């Protein structure tokens, strides 16, 4: 019934849109295996030599490490803050809850360039610019509201009478959360942590302002090398990032279902 709503012309348009959306992603993966070193599509001959070039480059390995450190830190911080806040807003009345949600969401409505500029001017007062701490905090501004909303959605599906029962039976609030709530919202917590991780992993503009030579993340390193010349290693790094992200999306999809995930986000 639903499928008949879209007529043939509509389906054609959507098919073209889907192709345009994912085509560039496919092209990047294909060029990573190009033997010639010319960044072009379709590839002329397959090779994995640029993967070896990546493994031999200390700059790129450092960038990969930086990205992992920052993304892990962002994921841990955002999930913890998000869980606490989602528990906290349950006890607020409607008006205050809206105010808290609005404050949390506000940074998402500010362009990355402006967040980069504002955090850079302040962090540089404390000598914190170019540090992991600065990157984790700034990325958490965007990752936290998303983690918070995913956690809130999964809390909404939990039967809170179980939690009250645990408290009535004498469990401490922490024990009641870890023993009763957490096991039931495990999938939601995992999705929130993954979303925060990926938000940080792919973020570029803020990182461009806040990272230095030692803390440069992969997108910033890729950007710098792109601006100089088309380096085939960029394709390889991009392909790796892409595979990591697609892998995480598949995991999330399996945990939560793509449809629910897409509407919780």
């Amino acid at each position: 019934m639903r499928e008949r709503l879209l007529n043939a012309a509509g389906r054609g348009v959507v098919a073209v849109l889907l192709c345009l959306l994912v085509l560039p992603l496919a092209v990047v993966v294909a060029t990573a295996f190009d033997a010639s070193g010319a960044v072009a599509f379709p590839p002329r001959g397959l090779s994995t030599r640029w993967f070896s070039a990546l493994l031999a480059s200390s700059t790129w390995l450092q960038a990969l490490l930086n990205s992992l450190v920052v993304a892990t830190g962002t994921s841990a911080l955002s999930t913890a803050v998000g869980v606490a806040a989602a528990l906290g807003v349950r006890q607020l009345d409607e008006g205050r809850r809206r105010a808290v949600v609005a404050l949390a969401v506000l940074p998402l409505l500010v362009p990355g360039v402006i967040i980069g500029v504002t955090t850079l001017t302040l962090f540089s007062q404390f000598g914190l610019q170019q540090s992991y701490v600065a990157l984790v905090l700034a990325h958490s501004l965007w990752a936290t509201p998303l983690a918070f909303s995913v956690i809130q959605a999964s809390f909404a599906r939990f039967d809170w009478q179980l939690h009250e029962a645990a408290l009535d039976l004498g469990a401490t609030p922490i024990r009641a959360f870890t023993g009763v709530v957490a096991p039931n919202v495990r999938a939601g917590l995992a999705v929130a942590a993954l979303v925060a991780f990926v938000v940080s992993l792919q973020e570029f503009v803020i990182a461009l302002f806040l990272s230095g030579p030692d803390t440069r993340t992969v997108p910033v390193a890729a950007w710098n090398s792109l601006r100089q010349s088309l380096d085939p290693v960029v394709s390889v790094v991009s392909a790796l990032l892409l595979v990591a992200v697609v892998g995480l999306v598949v995991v999330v999809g399996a945990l939560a279902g793509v449809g629910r995930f897409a509407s919780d986000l």
Partner: protein
Amino acid sequence: MSTRTRRLPSLGGRRTLALLAPLLALDVLVFLVPTAYLLRVSLTARTPGGAFVEGSWALDGYRYVTETSLVHEILAFTLFFAVLVTALAVAVGVVYAYAAWCATGWTRTLLLGGAVCSLFTTLVVKLFAVLLVYSPQGLVNDLLRAVGLASEPVLLVDNLAGAVIGQLYIVVPYAILAVYAVLSSLNTQLVEAARDLGADGSGVFREVVLPHVRPGIAVAAVIAFTWSVGAYPAPLLLGSGSEQTVGILVSQLLLARFDWPAAAALSVVTAGTVFGSLLVVLWRLDLAGGLLDA
């Protein structure tokens, strides 16, 4: 203080506050305080010798913004660019999200999965890929020539088209998911009822679906607009020298010219423009309530 303790049951109130404290601390310390500091820097005197004159009060930065005609041109172009990208992104987002909602099973997973993957791909990779695909020797031009739509290569990068295409790849996934999130709460029975009463496909879309997704459209438009006003990498990589946006100018002032008062003032003016225009539009469309609900 006393009224507050009286209104909240003391233990529960304190626990709620403790749970909310990390979120409030993060947003206040990393967002509100830096924003206030930026406002302060925008009111200092400019100096050729360093970033800004500490402790001074001056309107130098704002004078630069109001008196330089290049800045006016860049501001005007940025707004035009943002409105264009927003209109296109919302149109694509609505069509795509509606198709995903209509689809079932694997088709829906494929459509939503494609949008989520694109959303979570770093924009550097996306822009780099867009450069490859849309360049004169790229795949899109090959296809256009193969189906006979073009005989000469169509220039789709290094110009306005390139900047717009690049920015669309950044904001369209958000637009799709914002619309889809609202659409997923649409009751299928409403659509069936409309069809039983004789509405055709486009009638259902116009009379039932569009009114329902208005909050989603508002969110999609807000995201697309604010992010495009701050557009930086897409016009830089895929535009030409004439596709200068405020974001590019701010970063030049800050990182290359070390003119912090000017950069801060321009950021403040830009953020003010974004919030001002959003408030006006939301107020005119009376969608503010819907935006907070979504």
